[in-house]
């Protein structure tokens, strides 16, 4: 399947829609909340478990955020690249 039929504007719209989902401070908020659980727990074992959960979820949500930014960036790049290719083809066929 090597055919190419692409709307560069659609790719850039897709990137903008993904950005609208937000979530930049999500990882930090979850880590702070779980660390607060650790200090409010009143029990050593429970506090340790909350600390482990904070580390684990901090890493996961940071990675998810990086991936999301990556998807947005790749969509945007693809949109730009296809738009440039399209413009180049149009310019070349219009030349005498």
């Amino acid at each position, binding site marked *: 399947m090597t*055919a190419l039929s*692409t709307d560069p504007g*659609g790719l850039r719209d897709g990137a903008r829609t993904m950005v609208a*989902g*937000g979530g930049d401070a999500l990882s930090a*908020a979850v880590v702070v909340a779980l660390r*607060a659980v650790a200090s409010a727990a009143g029990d050593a074992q429970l506090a340790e478990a909350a600390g482990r959960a904070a580390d684990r979820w901090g890493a996961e949500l940071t990675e998810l955020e990086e991936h999301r930014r990556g998807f947005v960036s790749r969509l945007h790049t693809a949109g730009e690249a296809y738009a440039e290719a399209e413009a180049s083809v149009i310019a070349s066929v219009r030349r005498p």
Partner: protein
Amino acid sequence: MPGDPQGLSRSALVLARAAGDLADQDRALRRGSAVATSGWLGAAALAFDAAAGGHAGRVVHAQRTVESLGAAIRAYSTTLEALQRRTSSLLGRRRALTEELRAARRQAAAGGATGTTAQDLSARIRRLDDDLEESQRQASAARRTLTAALDDLRPRPTRRVPPRPGARAGCTSLPELAAGGAVTGATAWQRRIPTVPVAAGRRAHCGPVRPVLTNPFHHMRTGPVGPAPDESPGHRMQTGPVSPAPDESPGHRMQTGPVGPAPDAPGRRVGTGPVGPLP
């Protein structure tokens, strides 16, 4: 009884909000990917779609798990608050009863007849001690439950599919399709299945496949079928309900599915299952 229920409630609220944000992110990701790939075909579109599908699966898992974490912390906070109130009340009553008991003992020592009252007060204090112990047990059980939830509610482990030898870009094997995507086995991603032209039936091809209908009556059949009027015999198996072919003589084959009355014997019988030749 140690612990800060208000602090725990605030944390639970933050986690519930975070789960809501993750749900928003998932929706934006799906909408964005749908907008982007609606007019995008080819290997890059397939690769992007599969990777975005895997990512969306992780986001959905994170959203549900963070929500569950928030619910577990809220439940613990509610239980802890109730047990702290109960413990405080029990301790207050115990202090009062202890004072009464001391007074009764002083009165008894002074020559008053308060033996029964002292015994009664001691019994009531023992019952309060039992209640306090029960509250402690309940608090320990709630702590263990939350500790287990914090350890068990984990992010989804990432599964990397090794590249297939000789794999070409844009080709997705059937097991990978069944697993939901080429990159990870995450949530099935909504993507239109391209229509395969009838002529493609004789070629190997990549991607999902639609059934190719060549029966002139547009019916699907089950089991080995005899030659259709315009087809060479025995070239394919077909599935689906069976309708009697008007131009074939009965009795030459087994049929499955509902069978109607034979055209030459109306109303004489209605047969089900395999049928033999009509008399």
